[in-house]
């Protein structure tokens, strides 16, 4: 594994601002991004990512590889929460296990973006329609999380979970929660307006993109560092989980990607989708539908461990795996 890969991944401004944010907390600087500014940046990123993806989808058309990729993505977002649930269940109750499992079945858009910058830097091509896969991995993970609660949380303390699942609520949260709605809506609008729409919005959604991302990552660094304190309470099990799940999920993802013959660039993005955990859409959904779970656990592990792990170690590691796995293909 080429160490300069790691470095080149880290030495770009958005990632460095993430570490600056963490540093600010460690040295007790009073730097902060006041609310609701971070929410504005989140909304911007969702809109921009979705719209861009939609335009690229319009360009590529909804071809067979696109459909295959999307199916694979949905598959992984169903599989990951199921198997991780049983691992988590060995130490945590069913509510927390299901919520964390859903978190890891879903995705982190910012990790995805960092991976695409990484590919850009290496001049490895990838397809814009991967964003469609991203957009469609949030909802299934949320639904699976809730089904797991339903199946395994019977008779627990606080377990008035004998009432039937309120599917209206569940689907509402899975498909219509603000973040998912904006992401998918922007994707559709991008798809509908295509090149002409792109022309209108490019200076906003493209040129500003890395700047807003930089600010957002500065804030994420601040939050992640504060969350690290939370983790000390959760103990070593969850931290270990948050470090080991990503490469395992990425590897599963890569094997699947290889099977459906994704290009190396697309495979990296796919791996990163599988490896990353949600801290935007899923926490909001879990808070409402699995209120028994402790948000500290699922937010902190996704944000303070898995996210930095993927950024620092994960992306170059998965790229290295791809170099090995796709080798046969290339020769």
């Amino acid at each position, binding site marked *: 594994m080429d160490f300069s890969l790691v470095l080149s991944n880290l030495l770009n401004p958005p990632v460095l601002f993430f570490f600056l944010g963490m540093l600010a907390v460690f040295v007790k600087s009073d730097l902060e991004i006041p*609310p609701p500014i971070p929410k504005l940046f989140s909304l911007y990123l969702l809109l921009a990512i979705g719209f861009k993806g939609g335009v690229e989808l319009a360009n590529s058309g909804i071809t067979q590889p696109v459909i295959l990729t999307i199916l694979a993505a949905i598959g992984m977002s169903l599989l990951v929460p199921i198997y991780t649930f049983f691992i988590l269940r060995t130490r945590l109750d069913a509510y927390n296990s299901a919520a964390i499992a859903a978190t890891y079945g879903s995705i982190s858009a910012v990790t995805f973006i960092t991976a695409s910058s990484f590919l850009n830097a290496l001049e490895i091509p990838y397809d814009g329609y991967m964003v469609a896969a991203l957009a469609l991995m949030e909802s299934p993970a949320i639904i699976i999380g809730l089904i797991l609660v339903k199946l395994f949380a019977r008779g627990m303390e606080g377990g008035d979970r004998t009432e039937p699942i309120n599917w209206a609520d569940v689907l509402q949260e899975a498909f219509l929660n603000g973040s998912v709605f904006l992401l998918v809506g922007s994707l559709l609008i991008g798809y509908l307006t295509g090149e002409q729409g792109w022309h209108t919005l490019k200076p906003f959604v493209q040129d500003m993109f890395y700047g807003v991302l930089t600010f957002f990552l500065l804030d994420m660094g601040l939050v992640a560092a504060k969350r690290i304190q939370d983790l000390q309470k959760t103990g070593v099990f969850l931290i270990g989980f948050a470090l080991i799940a990503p490469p395992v999920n990425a590897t599963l993802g890569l094997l699947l990607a290889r099977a459906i013959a994704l290009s190396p660039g697309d495979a990296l993005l796919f791996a990163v989708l599988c490896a990353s955990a949600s801290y935007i859409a899923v*926490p909001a959904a879990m808070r409402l539908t699995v209120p028994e779970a402790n948000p*500290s656990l699922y937010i902190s592990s996704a944000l303070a461990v898995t996210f930095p792990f993927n950024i620092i170690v994960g992306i170059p590691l998965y790229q290295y795996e791809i170099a090995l796995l796709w080798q046969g293909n290339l020769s």
Partner: protein
Amino acid sequence: MQPAKRLEMIADSIELQKLLAGLQKAGISRYTVIHNVEGWGVRGIMASTGDVTMLDTAYVIAFCTPEQVQSTVEILRPILKRFGGSCYVSDVMEVKSNPD
């Protein structure tokens, strides 16, 4: 001036709709919401940093008549139990537009 009650509730904004629907059901249709407050609660440090996670805490104030309190509390209690959050009641004097 006339005696009235202040209801204060603090909860995740995601839970807000349920609380406000509860108020409505109890006949309280006037209230004020302060969004984006920062909260440290029972669920550990920063139960709701909000920000990056799209979760944020809201603070709701509703002034009502002393008679409305009891039934409102009955309606809100199960919601608070299920989703967390707090509710407090206190005494105020309402300044009416017309002297009394």
